[in-house]
C-alpha cells in the first residue's frame, strides 16, 4: 500500500500540461448516410491530446492551440476523418460509415491496435456474435468463429467445460488449453466442480463481452511468455459509450432436448434376440427370458430413455444500464439464468452483476474499475463418460426393456445396489434403478466468483502513458454429494455424503509505460515496457461420511456413523515478469514488431526460475506500393504480407513444487514417519514452442471481400514426460519428470469475410473459416516407446508413438463377420485372419479362419495397432448473416473432417450379456450361413465378438466427419414505437442451437470427448451423453 501512495505522488510530481495561446473552435458532426447528428464522436486536435466529444445534438466545443492545423474526427463504426482547420472557428464534419469494419480496433497483449496495423496473427470475434447463443459460457459458442481455433463440447451436460485447442495439441503431460485473460487479468479456467461440472468461464455473462481477441502466433502471444504456447484468448468486457444513458434488456426462454437417443430393442425384440443367444450358448433347455406384465396386465416394455431425458426449460435475463459523459463512462449489468438440461435433475443457475466505470479525473489522469460478481449453482446426476454404473447416459440404453421401474405392488424394483431382476434368468443386475439414482442421489457445485480489474493511467505528455493495473480473481467452489442408501453406489455403505471446498485466490499487478510517436507522419514508433507480478493460492479440503443413522439425513452435516479420513491440498505459485515491445512502421507500409518477456516462476528450482521468451514479426502493405496499386489496385483494395517467428513457453506441466525434493508423512503402526516421496527435478522447466507463421491478407472490390491466408508451424520441444528410472534406484514412483519430448503442429488457415450485399435495406455477409491441422509426435522419453491413453481407467483406447499424431486410436484390426460361420474375423500381427468362438473354452476360442487350427489368443498388446486419429485434419465454420429491412436471419455451420472416433459405446450396444442392444442387433444378427451382417452370431455372455474394453476392435472405429447446423436464428426488429414506452427498439427472435448434424457416424454425436481435455486420449466415445438441442424465443430491447 505504501508503494501505491509513492507511485501516485510521483505521478503528480511529474505530470505536465501545456498552457499557451488557444482559440475556441466549434462545429457539428453528422452522418453521411442520413445527415443526422452524431453524438459521442471524438474530436481531437491532431498532434495533441486536446479533444472533446460531441453532444446529443452532434455539437462540440474545443479550445485548440492557435497553431493547430487539423482536427481528427473518430467514432466507432465510422471512418476516421481529418478536416483542416484553415483558420476557421466553426469546423463541421461529415462521417461515412465504416461498412466493412476496416477501422476496427483489436485488443492485443497489453494494449490495442488498429486491425490493419496488426502484424501478428490475431482473430477477433465480437461479443454480439455470441450474445444470444443459449449456452452457459462464451467458450461453448466460439466454435467455427475463428480460424485455427477448435472447440469441442464433450456432451450436452450443462456447464461442462469445452475442449479448446488453438493450432493443435501443444502438450502431452501439461495442458493444451489456452490462457484466458479478462480485462487484462489471466483468470482461472477449467472445471471447478466434480460430477456437477462448473466451467470457470461460465462466470462471465456472455452478454457482458464486448470482444474476444484470440492471439495465435509467437508475435502476438510473446508478451505472455511462459503461458503463451497454447495461444491466448483476450476477453474485454463492455464499457459505456455515447452520450445518453442506454438501458437494454436481453432475455430468452426456451427448451432443450437431446439431439440423439439410441434406438434400442423393445421388449419383444429383446426377448427374441436374447433367447436366441441363450439357446446358442446354453442349448435348447436354457431358461428363457419371459415377457412380464404389470399390475394391470399390460406387457412391460420400459423405454428407459424416457426416464432419463426430458425437455428442459431454460430462461435467461440480462439488464444493462450504460452510458458516457465526456469524462465518465459506465456500464452496469445484472443477469439471471436458470436452465434445466436435457437429463432429468441436471440444472444450472447463475446470478451475476457487473459494473465497469472509467473516469477521466483530469486531462492526464484516468482511472477505472471493472468489477464482476457471479454466483453459479450446478446440479447433475452422474451422466456419462466411461464406466460408472450409475451413469445415466448408459442406463438409458443398457437396461433391459423387460424390467419395470416399479414392482407390481408399487414398491421400487430394486435388489441390493442394483435394479431388481424380476426372476429373469440373468439374476440381479449391478446397475441401479435410474428413477432412484436420478432423484435421490445428489451432486451439486456452487461457485462464487469475483473478478476485478482496477487501473489508473497517467498521460505524462503526448504519446507517453503510464498505466498501473491491479486485478483479482477469487473463486470459491463448494461441492456436495449424497449417495442414497436405497440403491446405487451408496447402498453398500448404507449411504454416503461428503463435501469439499476449494478456494482459489489470485492477484495480478502490472505496470506499463507506453510511448507512441509519429515523426512526420512517416516514421511511427510504439514502445511498451512493463513489469507484472501475479500470485495464486489454491487450497482445498474435504470430508466424507458413510453409514447413515436415519435415511432422513441427506447431507454431510447430518448424522452418520462412520467417517473417512479427510483430504485436501494446498498450492501456491508466483510470477514476476519484465516485458517490452517495440513496433515500428514506415508510412504504414513496412511494419516491424518485436516483443520480449522475461518470466520468473516460483515452481522452477532456485537459480533457474527465469526464462526469456520473444516474438518478432514483419508486415509489408503491398497495396501502398505504387507499382502494386497501379497494377492491381482496382481489384485489390488491400494486400499485405506477414511473417512472424518466436519462442514462447508452456509452464503448465511444471507444478507448484515439482523442482523440490519432498518428504511425505505417514504411519509406522502408531508412530509418525517421514519418508522421501518426491524426487524433484531441479532442471525441470517450461515446454518451449517455436512458432513460425506466414500469411497474406488481401481485400477485393474496395474491402468488400476480405481474405486472410496463414500458414503456421509450431515446433514444440522439451515436453515434460515421466522418464522411467531403473527400479533398483528406488526412486518414488520409479520415474522422474523431465523435458524430453517433442512434437509439432502445422497447418493452414483461411478466413474469408464477404460483404456480398451491403445496401441499407438488404445486406448479406458470409464468413468462412477453414483450418487444417497436422500433428506429429517426434520424440518421447528415452526408453519409452509409447504412451498409453486410458478411458475410465479400464480401457486402453489410445496410444501415442513417435511419428504419429498424439493419441492414436489403438485397436485390433477386424474384418467384419464371416458370412459362413457368423464369427468376428480378427487379424493378428502376422496378418492372418483368426475367428473367435465364444462357446469354446480356453485357448480353443481362437481359430484360424482358414480352418488350420487353434490360433494364439488375440490380445491388444501383441496384435493391436494404431488405426485412426481423433484429431480433425480440417475444421472450421461457415456463417451467413442476412438482413432485409427489419428482418434478420443467420445460419452458422460448423464442420470437421478427416478424423476418426473410437465408438466404444457401440461395443456396449452389441454386448451379448443381459445388456439391451441397439435395434440393429435384433434386426440383423447372424442366423445362418450366407448372412452378410456386422453382428456376430449371438452367444449369451459374449462381450468380446462385438468389442470389449480389453480388446478394442477396428469395427468400432468410424469416420467422424460432420457438418453441423450449429445455430440458426430469425429475428425482427421493431423500431418505431410510441415514445411513451421509452423503448427505442425491440428485436424478437427465434433460434435453434445444434439443430442438426450431417454425419455418417453412428454414435450419438461426432462432436464428442469421453476423456474431456485429455491430450493423450482424444477421439473416444464411451457411454457419453449426447449433445443438447435448444430452441429459444428471445427479445433484445433497447430503451
Amino acid at each position, binding site marked *: 500500500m505504501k*508503494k501505491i501512495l*509513492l*507511485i501516485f505522488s*510521483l*505521478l503528480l*510530481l*511529474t505530470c*505536465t500540461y501545456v498552457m499557451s495561446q488557444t482559440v475556441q473552435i466549434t462545429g457539428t458532426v453528422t452522418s453521411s448516410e442520413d445527415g443526422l447528428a452524431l453524438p459521442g464522436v471524438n474530436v481531437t486536435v491532431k498532434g495533441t491530446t486536446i479533444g472533446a466529444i460531441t453532444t446529443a445534438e452532434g455539437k462540440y466545443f474545443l479550445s485548440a492551440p492557435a497553431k493547430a492545423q487539423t482536427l481528427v474526427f473518430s467514432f466507432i463504426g465510422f471512418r476516421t476523418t481529418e478536416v483542416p482547420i484553415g483558420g476557421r472557428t466553426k469546423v463541421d464534419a461529415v462521417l461515412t460509415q465504416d461498412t466493412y469494419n476496416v477501422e476496427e480496433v483489436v485488443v492485443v497483449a497489453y494494449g490495442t491496435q488498429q486491425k490493419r496495423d496488426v502484424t501478428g496473427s490475431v482473430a477477433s470475434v465480437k461479443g454480439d456474435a455470441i450474445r444470444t447463443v443459449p449456452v452457459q459460457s462464451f467458450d461453448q459458442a466460439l466454435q467455427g468463429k475463428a480460424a485455427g481455433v477448435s472447440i469441442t463440447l464433450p456432451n450436452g451436460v450443462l456447464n461442462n467445460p469445452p475442449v479448446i485447442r488453438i493450432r493443435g495439441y501443444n502438450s502431452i503431460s501439461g495442458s493444451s488449453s489456452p490462457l484466458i485473460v479478462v480485462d487484462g487479468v489471466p483468470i482461472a479456467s477449467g472445471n471447478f466442480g466434480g460430477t456437477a461440472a462448473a466451467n470457470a468461464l461460465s462466470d462471465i455473462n456472455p452478454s457482458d463481452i464486448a470482444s474476444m481477441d484470440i492471439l495465435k502466433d509467437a508475435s502476438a502471444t510473446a508478451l505472455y511468455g511462459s503461458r503463451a504456447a497454447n495461444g491466448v484468448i483476450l476477453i474485454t468486457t463492455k464499457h459505456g459509450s455515447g452520450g445518453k444513458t442506454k438501458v437494454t434488456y436481453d432475455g430468452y426462454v426456451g427448451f432443450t432436448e437431446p439431439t440423439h437417443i439410441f434406438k434400442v430393442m423393445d421388449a419383444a425384440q429383446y426377448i427374441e434376440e436374447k433367447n436366441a443367444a441363450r439357446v446358442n450358448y446354453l442349448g435348447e433347455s436354457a431358461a428363457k427370458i419371459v415377457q412380464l406384465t404389470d399390475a394391470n396386465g399390460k406387457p412391460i416394455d420400459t423405454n428407459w430413455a424416457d426416464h432419463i431425458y426430458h425437455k428442459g426449460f431454460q430462461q435467461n435475463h440480462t439488464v444493462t444500464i450504460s452510458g458516457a459523459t465526456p469524462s465518465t463512462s459506465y456500464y452496469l449489468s445484472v443477469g439471471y439464468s436458470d436452465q434445466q438440461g436435457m437429463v432429468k435433475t441436471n440444472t444450472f443457475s447463475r446470478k451475476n452483476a457487473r459494473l465497469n466505470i472509467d473516469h477521466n479525473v483530469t486531462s492526464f489522469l484516468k482511472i477505472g474499475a471493472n468489477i464482476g460478481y457471479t454466483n453459479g449453482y450446478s446440479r447433475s446426476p452422474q451422466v456419462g463418460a466411461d464406466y460408472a454404473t450409475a451413469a445415466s447416459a448408459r442406463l438409458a440404453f443398457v437396461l433391459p426393456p423387460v424390467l419395470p421401474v416399479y414392482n407390481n405392488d408399487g414398491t421400487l424394483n430394486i435388489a441390493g445396489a442394483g435394479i431388481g431382476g424380476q426372476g429373469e434368468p440373468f439374476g440381479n443386475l449391478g446397475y441401479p434403478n435410474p428413477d432412484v439414482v436420478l432423484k435421490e442421489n445428489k451432486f451439486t457445485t456452487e461457485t462464487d466468483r469475483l473478478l476485478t480489474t482496477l487501473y489508473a493511467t497517467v498521460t*505524462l*505528455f503526448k504519446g507517453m502513458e*503510464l498505466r498501473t493495473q491491479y486485478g483479482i480473481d477469487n473463486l470459491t467452489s463448494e461441492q456436495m454429494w449424497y449417495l442414497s442408501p436405497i440403491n446405487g453406489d451408496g447402498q453398500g455403505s448404507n449411504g454416503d455424503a461428503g463435501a469439499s471446498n476449494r478456494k482459489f485466490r489470485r492477484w495480478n499487478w502490472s*505496470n506499463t*509505460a507506453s510511448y507512441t510517436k509519429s515523426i512526420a507522419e512517416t516514421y511511427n514508433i510504439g514502445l511498451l*515496457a*512493463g*513489469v507484472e*507480478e501475479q*500470485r495464486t493460492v489454491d487450497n482445498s479440503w474435504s470430508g466424507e461420511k458413510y453409514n447413515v443413522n436415519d435415511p432422513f439425513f441427506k447431507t454431510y452435516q447430518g448424522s452418520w456413523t462412520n467417517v473417512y479420513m479427510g483430504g485436501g*491440498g*494446498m498450492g*501456491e505459485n*508466483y510470477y*514476476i515478469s*519484465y516485458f517490452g515491445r517495440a513496433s515500428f512502421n514506415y508510412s504504414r507500409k513496412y511494419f516491424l514488431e518485436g516483443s520480449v518477456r522475461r518470466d520468473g516462476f*516460483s515452481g522452477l528450482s532456485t537459480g533457474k*526460475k527465469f526464462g526469456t521468451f520473444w516474438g518478432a514479426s514483419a508486415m509489408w502493405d503491398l497495396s501502398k506500393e505504387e507499382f502494386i496499386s497501379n497494377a492491381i489496385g482496382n481489384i485489390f483494395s488491400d494486400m499485405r504480407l506477414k511473417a512472424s517467428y518466436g519462442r514462447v513457453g508452456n509452464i503448465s506441466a511444471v507444478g*507448484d*513444487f515439482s523442482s*523440490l*525434493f*519432498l*518428504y511425505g*508423512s*505417514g*504411519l*509406522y*503402526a*502408531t*508412530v*509418525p*514417519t*517421514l*519418508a*522421501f516421496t*518426491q*524426487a524433484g*527435478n531441479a532442471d525441470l522447466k517450461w515446454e518451449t514452442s517455436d512458432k513460425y507463421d506466414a500469411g497474406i491478407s488481401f481485400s477485393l472490390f474496395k474491402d468488400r471481400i476480405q481474405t486472410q491466408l496463414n500458414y503456421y508451424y509450431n515446433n514444440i520441444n522439451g515436453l515434460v514426460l515421466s*522418464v*522411467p*528410472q*531403473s*527400479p*533398483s*534406484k*528406488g*526412486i*518414488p514412483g*520409479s520415474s*522422474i519428470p523431465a523435458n524430453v519430448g517433442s512434437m509439432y503442429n502445422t497447418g493452414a488457415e483461411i478466413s474469408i469475410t464477404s460483404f456480398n450485399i451491403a445496401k441499407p435495406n438488404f445486406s448479406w455477409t458470409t464468413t468462412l473459416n477453414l483450418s487444417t491441422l497436422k500433428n506429429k509426435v517426434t520424440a518421447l522419453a528415452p*526408453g519409452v516407446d509409447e504412451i498409453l491413453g486410458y478411458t475410465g481407467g479400464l480401457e486402453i483406447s489410445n496410444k501415442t508413438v513417435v511419428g504419429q499424431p498424439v493419441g492414436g486410436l489403438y485397436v485390433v484390426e477386424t474384418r467384419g463377420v464371416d458370412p459362413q460361420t457368423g464369427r468376428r474375423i480378427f487379424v493378428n500381427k502376422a496378418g492372418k485372419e483368426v475367428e473367435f468362438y465364444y462357446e469354446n473354452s480356453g485357448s480353443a476360442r481362437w481359430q484360424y479362419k482358414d480352418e488350420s487350427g487353434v490360433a494364439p489368443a488375440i490380445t491388444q498388446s501383441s496384435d493391436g495397432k494404431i488405426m485412426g486419429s481423433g484429431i480433425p485434419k480440417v475444421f472450421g465454420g461457415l456463417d451467413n448473416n442476412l438482413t432485409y429491412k427489419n428482418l434478420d436471419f443467420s445460419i452458422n455451420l460448423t464442420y470437421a473432417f478427416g478424423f476418426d472416433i473410437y465408438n466404444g459405446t457401440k461395443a456396449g450396444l452389441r454386448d451379448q450379456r443381459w445388456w439391451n442392444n441397439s435395434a440393429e442387433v435384433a434386426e440383423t444378427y447372424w442366423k445362418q450361413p450366407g448372412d452378410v451382417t456386422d453382428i456376430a452370431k449371438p452367444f449369451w455372455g459374449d462381450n468380446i465378438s462385438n468389442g470389449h474394453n480389453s480388446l478394442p476392435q477396428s469395427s468400432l472405429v468410424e469416420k467422424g466427419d460432420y457438418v453441423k447446423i450449429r445455430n440458426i436464428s430469425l429475428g425482427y426488429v421493431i423500431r418505431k414505437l410510441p415514445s411513451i414506452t421509452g423503448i427505442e427498439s425491440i428485436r424478437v427472435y427465434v433460434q435453434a442451437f445444434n439443430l442438426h448434424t450431417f454425419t455418417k457416424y453412428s454414435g450419438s454425436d461426432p462432436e464428442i470427448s469421453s476423456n474431456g481435455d485429455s491430450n493423450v486420449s482424444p477421439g473416444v466415445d464411451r457411454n457419453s451423453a449426447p449433445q443438447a438441442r435448444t430452441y429459444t424465443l428471445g427479445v433484445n430491447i433497447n430503451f
Partner: protein
Amino acid sequence: MRNILKMAAAFLVLLTAGCSKEYLNPVPQTSLSDLSVFDNKDRIVAQVNGMYSAVKAGWYLGGRYQSVADMRGDNFIPLSNNAYVNFNTWNHLEISATMEVNDIWNQIYASVNTVNVFLDGLKSNWESGKLAGIISEEEYNQFTSEALTLRAMCYFDLTRLYAKPYIQGNGENLGVPLRVKAEKSAEGNDLARSTVAEVYAQVLSDLNAAEPLAIANYGSDDLNTTRIHKNTIIALKTRVLLTKCDWAGAVSESAKIVPASAPFVAPSGVPNALSTNWSAIWTNNTTKESIFSLPNTDINNGGGQSAITWYFSSESGESVYLVATSPVYAAMDPTDIRRSSMDVLVPGGSDPDQYFLTKYTHFTTLSDWCPVIRYAEILLSRAEALVRSGGSVTQEAVDLLNAVRTRAFPTGAFTLASFATPADFYSAVLQERNFEFLGEGMRSFDLMRLGLDIPAKEGLTMGNIGAIPASSAAYYWPIPSGELSLNKLCVP
C-alpha cells in the same frame, strides 16, 4: 523530457524493488522439503520410522515376501488360482514379467533407497555440525545402526530370492546390483549385478559396522520388538552366516545371544528367550521371543491381498492351507500344538478337510504383526551350525533342538542316541524348522541355502506341481523385466 523519462524509469524500477523473494520460493505446507527434515529430533525419528515403514509395505515384509517364500516351497495348497495372489509363484510359472517378481523387487529397492537417502542426509548433517544439540552421539550411532541393518536385511532378502544360493559355487554366481548411495536424480540407471559373494560381503560389512553402534535395550517391550537393537543385528548375522554356510561364523555369532546351556536367555542386551507358551507369541506381539517383528494396525497394514493375514487366515478366500496328507502336516505329531492349533475348515463333498494356520487371525482389520526374526530360529540355527562345524552331534546341539521342539511338542524330546549320523541331525533340524516357521517366510530359503531340490507338491484341484531341481532356472527368481528394460548393464 529527459527528466520525465528518467522519472518513468524510476517508477518502473521502484515497483520491482519490492518484488517478493519469498513468493518466488514458496514452501509447500503439506510436505516437508529435504531442507527441513533434519531440523529437530522428532523429524529425524520420523525418518527412522519411515525406513521401517518402507520394509513393512505389503509388497515386502508386510506380507508378500513371506507368502512368496512359503508358496515357493513344498508345503501349501492355494485356495485361489488368481494370479494377483501369487499363483504363478506357487506353480513355478513365474517369468521375468510376472507381477510379483517386479513388485517385490521394486519395494525392496525402494526401501534400500529410503535407507540410503536417510543415511546420506544424517551423515552430512552430523558432519557439518548441524545436528549438534539436536541429537546426541549415541542417538546418531543408534540411527546409523538401524539404517545399516535394514539395508543389509534388504540386500540379503534380495539375493536369496533373485539369485543362485551361496552354496552353489561359493557365491561366484551373479547376484543383484548393489546400490549404496542415495539415488535422487535421473542419473545412474545402469549398474551391473554384483556377485552373490560380493552382496554377502556388503551385507556382513553393514551388519558388522552396525553392531557396535546399536542400542542395547530400548527399555520398552514395544520398541525392543519393533526397532533394531544389538541382539537383532546379531540374530540377523547368524541367519546370514548360516545361509552363507559359514558354520563357524554362525556358531561364534550366536554365542553372543545364546548361552552354552539352558536356560537359553540372551546374556546381554534385551533378554531374548523362548516364550514358554507357543500360542502367546501370536497373542502377545511383544514377547521376548520376538526379536524383530513389524507392527500393524487396522489403518496401517499391508492392505488387502498383500497383508500376511490375507495369505494364511482361514477367513480369507485367497489363502493357503494344508490337508491331512500334506507331508508337513502328516509328519507333525497330532499333539504338537503347532498342528493342533490349526483351524479346520470342512469344505464338504469329497474334498478333504482344510487346515489353516492360526498365527494370523485378525482378518477384518489385517492388523496382525509380521514376524521377521524369532529367538527360536537362533537356537535351531546354532544347533545346526554346531554340528556342521564340529562334524559330530553334541548334547549342546540336541538341547538347543529340544528347547524349541518340546515347547510345542512336550513329549517329543530327542536324545543323542536319536541321531546315528550328523545327516540324521540335519534332517531333524530342517524338519523342525519347517514345523516351527510355517507361514513365516522360511521354507523355500531353507531348502535353497542347502542346495536341496524343491520337492514336488500336490495341489488337489489346483494341479500337481513337479519337483524343481536345484540346477533348474526356476530354482530362483529371474531378474524382473522392469529392471532389465531400464538398466542396460543388468543381464538376466
